[in-house]
């Protein structure tokens, strides 16, 4: 099995974000990095502040969109960018910690603001080789 990783996939107007990992938690963490990479290079973000995130949903796919939307909300109201994530999931119930730093337009050169995570191309599943994939399109 390969290392946990993230990637973007094309959507005509916006951007698809995908996380892949050995566990569903890793897939969620990697997808969050993919979402941050829509805005800026995640490696440019220092981990000077932390936030606790919790969400609950009827299934893993809705939980995944809730997770990304919770991050979008926290970043919007706290005017910061997250660059590191630690996720725990138990029975469609997510608790997580996210680390980041205040948004600095000069340093981060943010390309775009993310309006919300969508149910388009939404998928949370284990593929045939046993890797977890979590993906959806984000509206920018």
């Amino acid at each position, binding site marked *: 099995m390969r290392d946990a990783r993230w990637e*973007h996939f*094309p*959507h*005509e*107007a*916006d*951007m698809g974000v995908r996380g892949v990992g050995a566990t569903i938690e890793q897939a969620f963490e990697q997808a969050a990095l993919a979402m941050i990479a*829509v*805005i*800026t290079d995640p490696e440019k973000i220092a981990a000077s502040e932390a936030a606790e995130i919790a969400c609950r*949903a*009827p299934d893993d796919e*809705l939980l995944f*969109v*809730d997770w990304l*939307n919770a991050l*979008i*909300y926290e970043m*919007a*109201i706290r*005017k910061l960018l997250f660059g590191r994530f630690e996720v725990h999931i138990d029975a469609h119930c997510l608790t997580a910690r996210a680390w980041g730093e205040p*948004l600095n*337009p000069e340093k981060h*050169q*943010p*390309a*775009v*603001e993310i*309006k*919300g*995570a*969508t*149910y*388009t191309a*939404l998928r949370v599943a284990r593929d045939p080789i046993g890797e977890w994939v979590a993906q959806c*399109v984000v*509206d*920018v």
Partner: protein
Amino acid sequence: MDISLFSRHTEYEWEIAPHGTMRVPAIIYADETLIHGMDHKVYEQLCNVATLPGIVKASCAMPDAHWGYGFPIGGVAAFDADEGGVVSAGGVGFDISCGVRCLHTGLTVEDVMPVQKALADTLYKEIPAGLGSTGAIRLDREEMDAMLAGGAHWAVEQGWGTAADLERIEEHGRMRGAHPDCVSEHAKTRQRDEMGTLGSGNHYLEVQKVAAVYDAAAAEVFGLRENSVVVSMHCGSRGLGHQIGTEFLKKMVVAAVHHGIALPDRELACAPVNSEIGEAYLGAMRAGINCALANRQILTHLTRAAFAKVLPRAHLPLLYDVSHNTCKVERHVVDDRSRELYVHRKGATRAFGPGHPDIPPALRAVGQPVLIGGSMGTSSYILAGTAAGETLAFSSACHGAGRAMSRHQAFRRWKGRQVIDELAARGILIRSPSSRGVAEEAPGAYKDVSAVVDAADAAGLARKVARVEPLICIKG
């Protein structure tokens, strides 16, 4: 898209016959080249919309249709509440009441060019743009609710504009039926310091010159002459609208089963108009419309302040303000019967024809102004609603160019600095906090807006009045 999937009614009207669980046909208004260029997802999404309860006449797509969320962007669909019709959070989208406002300036190109750079710099200083930018206005709980109920009316009461502005805004600047108490605390918190901000992505504020006039009589009524200068802004309801969209999308997905609605795509999340959640969404979504109208009103005030510093003799009254992500209750004649319908326009502009009572009296004989935004380096267009449009797609027209390539591809192909320099060589000044943002919004990343507008004109959805070209672009 495969043209053989359609039956061709006219050169610009293409129908997909109902099949499967579709309740009505789907119709695309476009020419053959535009249809060829559309993603197959547009076909799927149009057909999916046609399956929703209470849909009337047809699921429609404008010439700029592209792959959206649930609904195609450029999608129009109307629902009859008395026949179980739905309201869809996905059918309005995340940026509730995103739209375009156009201001006259009373100036010509010759007036502006000697101070073009100073004007660009001053506008960039006055207009908060880009991710994380904040406005100078902070609203407490009571003021937030007053803004959500009052829209541009509220903004004018605060001193950001004049009563004359309100006449030139859809709904006269205030969407009725807004319920601030249906808007969550999260949504209000997300908006607390975003009043009077432009946002990012494809949002912009441009100083433009009228480059061509196609209908001299209509242009005269609209106050447009070749070489005159206007200001156009494209933005929406900011964080508040995004949060309302996010929250109701989930609520509607979860509730769909209880309402007996089988969603072919979760993003089509909807609820019966006559349901608790449907009514709550309408109350919140209308508050979101008011937020967008208030936001564009504050940005208008900031624009006027910037012009006053550089070109004090400029006078900036509104030409018009349109929203292209909405659901509105309107009367339309279907099957020879006037019916009250919930018309969803997702990336589509309302385009009432001549004589419609909702058009300001001074413009009524011509038809509603339809403001179509281009990309940074390209033309934008001003059209007018037509009588024919009423019988086509519930008096709707296109809203913009649509992307031709993804942000990722654009970022790989262009550098922000290169785009800014190339446009400067053509006399267009760009001001933006983000070089990467400019690269992703490069003019070449968008489709040809002229082809879209020509198709809208030829199809009869709206008629071309004037073309404008940018002189200055403030980009988020």
